[in-house]
């Protein structure tokens, strides 16, 4: 029995590969799969998406914001509300009447920011609720876990907030797509600004969350800054969720370093930053220079938790609601009117991912997963808040403008935390897809 499946899959795979290789027009590919169905293809008059976000645990607020964005996206896709970024997206096949004539419905799940729970919840949405696409999440561990599950089940996964290089590097999957930027891009974006602001002769001290995301970020930032002439005094690993980081901060005081780089995210970032500032690091002078603290990735919702400590701190972000382009304005307006607060970058990336998937289905003319994947691969679009953007086919990573931001000195309100220092253009952030290795795997359709 398994042998039979294998040959059948092999055939489909061969079909898909030759389809790509011959650069066959869409209709050829579509016809080739005409009788085929993939997992959970909708049969009624609705199509179901699965929003898998952290609803409990430390990232619950971020998850809630993602969920708000998804619900807004569903509204806009179904033609309710003001349409948000559907109005600004170029090119777009979306008509605001659902997708391929079917209304969008959704189910939700709680990832708890644990990979087991996230996979359970994703399976529930696929097996029980018939979800055809899964999106959301706010950590790389969860993203990689759910992505590989989706690859196995033949469900497209549109990753939410995940910043590790691995998501579209070592662990990339044919069925997984990431709109958010990554640690490597943070390094490239941040380094020149650091050199401008702090000079080229600096001694950096890294405190790094001791798990894969922390390591990749440390490496990326270290490489980027060392190329500028900075030296690295020490890179110290800290346990995840340490709470009190003081025992790691005290050695910084006498280390001779004049920049502290905090490769922490979320709650760890809030705590280590708050405590580093309490230790007077930012009032110090070392080597005749003012001591500086850098947080390469801001989670802006969490940054509210650091209060005044975040003022003047440099970091990077995928997007910010204060950008001036039409798309951002439109999105911020409809989100703000709906919920009374501006969207976070997590909300933005989730909203965009939902729209991109819907658009790909429209363009492919089917919900058949391999065809949708092909429509997304290499898709180039504009008007989603990050300028001209490319979904690169080789690793399913989006290439677009990223931001270097700084904690604002005099915020107007609690949402006005960041000011944009520089918009780093896409060309600078583009890298060779092969540097992280990994293998996308096949795009054969699966039944479930």
């Amino acid at each position, binding site marked *: 029995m398994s042998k039979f499946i294998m040959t059948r899959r092999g055939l489909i795979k061969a079909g898909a590969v030759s389809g790509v290789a011959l650069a066959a027009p869409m209709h050829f590919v579509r016809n080739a799969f005409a009788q085929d169905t993939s997992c959970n293809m909708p049969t009624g008059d609705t199509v179901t998406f699965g929003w898998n976000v952290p609803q409990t645990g430390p990232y619950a607020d971020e998850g809630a914001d993602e969920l708000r964005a998804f619900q807004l996206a569903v509204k806009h896709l179904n033609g309710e509300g003001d349409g948000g970024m559907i109005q600004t997206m170029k090119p777009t096949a979306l008509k605001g009447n659902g997708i391929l004539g079917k209304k969008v419905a959704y189910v939700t799940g709680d990832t708890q920011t644990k990979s087991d729970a996230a996979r359970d919840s994703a399976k529930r949405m696929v097996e029980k609720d018939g979800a055809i696409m899964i999106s959301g999440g706010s950590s790389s561990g969860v993203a990689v876990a759910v992505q590989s599950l989706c690859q196995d089940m033949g469900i497209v996964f549109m990753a939410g907030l995940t910043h590790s290089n691995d998501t579209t590097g070592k662990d990339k999957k044919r069925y997984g797509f990431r709109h958010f930027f990554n640690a490597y891009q943070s390094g490239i974006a941040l380094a020149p600004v650091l050199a401008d602001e702090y000079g080229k002769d600096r001694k950096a001290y890294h405190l790094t969350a001791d798990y894969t995301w922390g390591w990749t970020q440390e490496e990326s930032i270290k490489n980027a800054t060392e190329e500028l002439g900075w030296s690295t005094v020490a890179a*110290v690993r800290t346990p995840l969720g340490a709470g009190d980081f003081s025992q790691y901060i005290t050695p910084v005081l006498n280390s001779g370093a004049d920049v502290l780089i905090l490769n922490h995210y979320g709650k760890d970032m809030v705590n280590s930053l708050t405590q580093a500032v309490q230790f007077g690091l930012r009032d110090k002078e070392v080597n005749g220079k003012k001591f500086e603290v850098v947080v390469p990735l801001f989670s802006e919702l969490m940054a509210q938790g650091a209060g005044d400590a975040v003022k003047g701190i440099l970091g990077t972000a995928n997007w910010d609601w204060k950008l001036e382009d039409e798309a951002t304005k439109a999105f911020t307006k409809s989100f703000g009117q709906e919920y009374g607060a501006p969207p976070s970058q997590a909300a933005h990336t989730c909203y965009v991912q939902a729209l991109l998937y819907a658009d790909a289905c429209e363009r492919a003319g089917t919900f058949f997963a391999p065809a949708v994947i092909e429509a997304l691969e290499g898709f180039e679009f504009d008007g989603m808040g990050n300028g001209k953007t490319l979904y690169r086919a080789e690793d399913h990573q989006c290439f677009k403008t990223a931001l270097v931001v700084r904690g604002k000195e005099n915020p107007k309100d609690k949402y006005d935390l960041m000011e944009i220092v520089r918009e780093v253009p896409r060309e600078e952030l583009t890298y060779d897809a092969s540097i992280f290795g990994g293998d996308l795997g096949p795009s054969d359709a699966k039944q479930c």
Partner: protein
Amino acid sequence: MDAILLQILNGLDKGGAYALIALGLTLVFGTLGVVNFAHGALFMLGAFCAVTFNKVLSLESVVVDPTQTTAWGSPLEVRTPYVEAWLGDFGVFLHNYSVPASVIIAIPIMLAIGIAIERGLIQYFYKRPHADQILVTFGLAIVIQEVIKKFYGANPIPQAAPADFSGTAYVGTLLGMGDALPYPWWRLIYLLFSFVVIGGVMAFLQFTTYGMVVRAGMRDRETVGMLGIDIERRFTVVFGLAAVVAGIAGAMYTPILPPDYHMGMDFLVLSFVVVVVGGMGSLTGAVVAGFLLGILQSFASMNEIKSILPGIDQIIIYLVAVVVLLTMPRGLMGRKGVMED
């Protein structure tokens, strides 16, 4: 040399916090024989007393300014805090000192919460197996946590230390060693605060008649009861006291660790380890264990040590717990027969 001294200071500072959190837990163990998994939640509630107090102080009058709009098109709201408007300079002062001032508010609140929990729930569990106590207090902790999340969200809420104490002290200068050992003021104050609270609780149990009866009850509850003393009632007060200690420890800790609804769970395991290493039901043991673990953790985190033993800072606490428990059957200062069944 400086580095070593700094690490010792840091260890003391951590140890003070650990001891303070463990104190109430071991008190409840020792007197009531109850495994209280909701102790972390009490610590968190104390922290949220500080948050709430600060919130009340920052209540603002809202005036809508139709001439200005937000980015999403609704009119801008202009806010001015009531307290500053009414009380002037004293209001500003109070706002500045909201964290230490909140301790005064936290004491009656936490006492009331503690007594309510003991009377309403814990008293029915004295004779039940520890497993039942764990389940019910764990359930209680989740409920408390979720209620706080409902009102305050899941993100940490920053609390500022008073401006006068938010900077760094040069401990070396204070000790006449020149311009050395910079350490945050607020952490030094927390260390001092933990000494005062620990000393206060111990003095209360050691030198007052009330405390003497409680200690007698810890040893032999039945005999004390037979003497005609309402030991139940004293135990209620002890639980309230434990809640107060946990609560004010939490309130004062907020400038160091921005509180969120989950912080109680984060401290739960740690406080249990401290209590058990110290010996069940021993107050002195908990304090000694707190400082011991604090200092060892601080040293294990130094680069020099981590480079020889990678990951040692991740496990040092548990390693110490294993070594202590294997060499000393009842922890550092535990009494025979407590919680061994």
